[in-house]
């Protein structure tokens, strides 16, 4: 079912919860089982905790266009009380959801009986105090805020600020700053829309707040550039504080150079010292103090470089892959085609290709590294470039904030992989 295609995956700040959003506008939250001493071989598995419909399809009558209910991004707020809060967004509207548990209910009301029917007051002969009794756990999700009508273009990113009071939402041409308490207005902090739309040559592709400095954020563009902005300098951050761009390699120039340089995702490291960007063929790590080139470049699937024309024809060249850091910023991960995903160890410089598919992995089996054969003889177990299935793309992945647990979305299936237990 197309509605089941997973469109975003995100762990919360403790890793206890994992949220997924899909094309049908639904959010499914998984919760990690408490590890029990009796079943030590079952290390905290993730089970469904809550499912709710976040967004519905809408119709924009003036433009005569549908607004998709697909969830583009989910971002968790840090937990401040017993309830969990997350932001979910489609192309136009951001919503704040509260997910809370109820495991007790009051019993013994005076004015109504257990079914909720009102009692006849004349029949009441004594007063009693209602008591809370345990009930089966119920998890409810309620929409607490709806932030609408602030984006003309399609929202591609949301990011919670480290002050936990504000967040930003970015579309193709603008970025808005919101206060969680205020839904009827937002501040526009970036606007790259040209006065004459005929002059449009560049769009915003992703944006994120710095993990510690609440005045700093970055946004990436379709021309492969990253801008770091400081909100203290001006209300409208059209002038960047830093501008990150790698000079073009003339030997690799083609008509597709710009398209493959378009950045599809940008993520700060947990430390806040680096940013990672994903373009069509590579993942790059940048030091915030060096703007003229990345400090590291990793090839995700360079064998596609000779296939760019075909990938342009079938539109795959426009696929937007995401990238993630592990908790210690030592390993980075990003997806590819054929349900492959790649991990790069920044320290050892080793990398691995793994596959998320049911046929090739039984539960509890160790994932076998995969290899794509580029030319010449194909070894057994290798797969040739022409045999890759480009309809099986891994665009969305997530890494647990402190443990080696990863979530990989392969079309409409979610895979959760953990470190092998000895």
């Amino acid at each position, binding site marked *: 079912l197309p509605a089941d295609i997973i469109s975003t995956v995100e762990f919360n700040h403790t890793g206890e919860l994992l949220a997924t959003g899909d094309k049908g506008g639904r959010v499914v939250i998984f919760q990690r089982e408490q590890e029990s001493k009796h079943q030590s071989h079952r290390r905290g598995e993730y089970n469904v905790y809550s499912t709710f419909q976040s967004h519905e399809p809408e119709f924009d009558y*003036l*433009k005569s266009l549908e607004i998709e209910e697909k969830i583009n991004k989910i971002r968790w707020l840090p937990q401040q009380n017993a309830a969990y809060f997350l932001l979910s967004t489609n192309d136009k509207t951001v919503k704040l959801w509260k997910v809370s548990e109820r495991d007790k209910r009051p019993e013994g009301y005076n004015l109504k009986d257990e079914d909720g029917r009102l009692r006849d007051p004349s029949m009441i002969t004594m007063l009693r105090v209602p008591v809370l009794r345990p009930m089966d756990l119920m998890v409810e999700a309620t929409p607490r805020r709806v932030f609408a009508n602030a984006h003309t273009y399609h929202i591609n990113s949301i990011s919670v600020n480290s002050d936990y009071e504000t967040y930003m939402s970015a579309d193709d041409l603008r970025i808005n700053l919101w206060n969680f308490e205020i839904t009827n207005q937002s501040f526009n902090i970036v606007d790259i829309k040209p006065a004459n739309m*005929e002059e449009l040559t560049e*769009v915003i592709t992703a944006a994120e707040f710095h993990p510690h400095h609440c005045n700093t954020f970055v946004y990436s563009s379709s021309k492969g550039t990253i801008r770091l902005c400081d909100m203290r300098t001006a209300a409208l951050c059209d002038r960047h504080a830093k501008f990150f761009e790698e000079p073009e390699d003339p030997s690799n120039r083609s*008509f*597709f150079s710009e398209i493959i340089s378009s950045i599809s995702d940008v993520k700060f490291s947990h430390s806040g010292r680096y940013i990672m960007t994903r373009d069509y063929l590579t993942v790059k790590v940048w030091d915030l103090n060096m703007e003229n080139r990345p400090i590291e470049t990793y090839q995700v699937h360079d064998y596609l470089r000779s296939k*760019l*024309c*075909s990938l342009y024809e079938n539109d795959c060249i*426009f696929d937007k892959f995401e990238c993630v850091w592990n908790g210690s910023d030592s390993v980075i991960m990003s997806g590819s085609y054929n349900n492959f995903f790649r991990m790069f160890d920044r320290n050892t410089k080793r990398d691995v290709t793994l596959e998320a598919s049911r046929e090739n992995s039984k539960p509890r089996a160790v994932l076998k590294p995969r290899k794509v054969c580029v030319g010449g003889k194909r070894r057994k177990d290798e797969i040739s470039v022409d045999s890759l299935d480009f309809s099986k793309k891994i665009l969305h992945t997530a890494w647990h904030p402190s443990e080696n647990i990863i979530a990989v979305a392969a079309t409409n299936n979610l895979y959760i992989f953990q470190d092998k237990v000895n």
Partner: protein
Amino acid sequence: MFVRGLKRKCFDGEEDIEGTLAGIKAIPSYNLQRQSLLDMSLVKLQLCHMLVEPNLCRSVLIANTVRQIQEEMTQDGTWQMINTQSTGQASLDRLVSTDILCRSSREQAEGKHVPGYSTFNKDFEGNQAQDNSETASSVQAPRNLQSNAWEMENPQENKGNFQKSLDQIFETLENKSPNSVEDLFSEVDNSYYDLDTMLTGMMSNTKMGHCDGLETFSSPATTASNSNCKSDLNELDHIVEILVES
């Protein structure tokens, strides 16, 4: 050919054929490959994606690619050559049929709302001045291909001004904003329709392609006969609300 840095073949898989002795299939020349890429890009920009708003990032990237090709073609003078050649007819047929799928019959008759097949008039008007004597519209290099195509279908419509620039594609994308209510309705003879009929016509035709949606402006008969035409008061209030707010 040109001294323009290193260029790469954009056709994949052709490298294999290079090695064969027989060389049965000639490798398309760089010009043909580039032309094919240009055609493919223009088709991509034109294809109407049903009901959902087109992806702006993708459109911008494709448009930039088209500009890049055009610039290169201008620099090496290929742009003028295209007029005299009849290359790519086979691919043109394919492109024509794709294009027709996207246009309602009214658009074809009036040549409206067609994002430029043969765009970028700004830079190339000078080159084509000699062809301009008959038509008021500025002529672009691929115009010959285009005019051949349209002559096959609508000979008398050839001078219809359907050659919008690429820039106007973005205007089209951009103008789908709540503020351009006047633009949206400006082509409609207001005395003929009332708002109710038009809007309910739009609503009832939601399942049609986006391009076909324009047909609601031109065919009152269909909206009248459409059983969904009866406006639901609540929905109409909602629409009026939107108009008022914007």
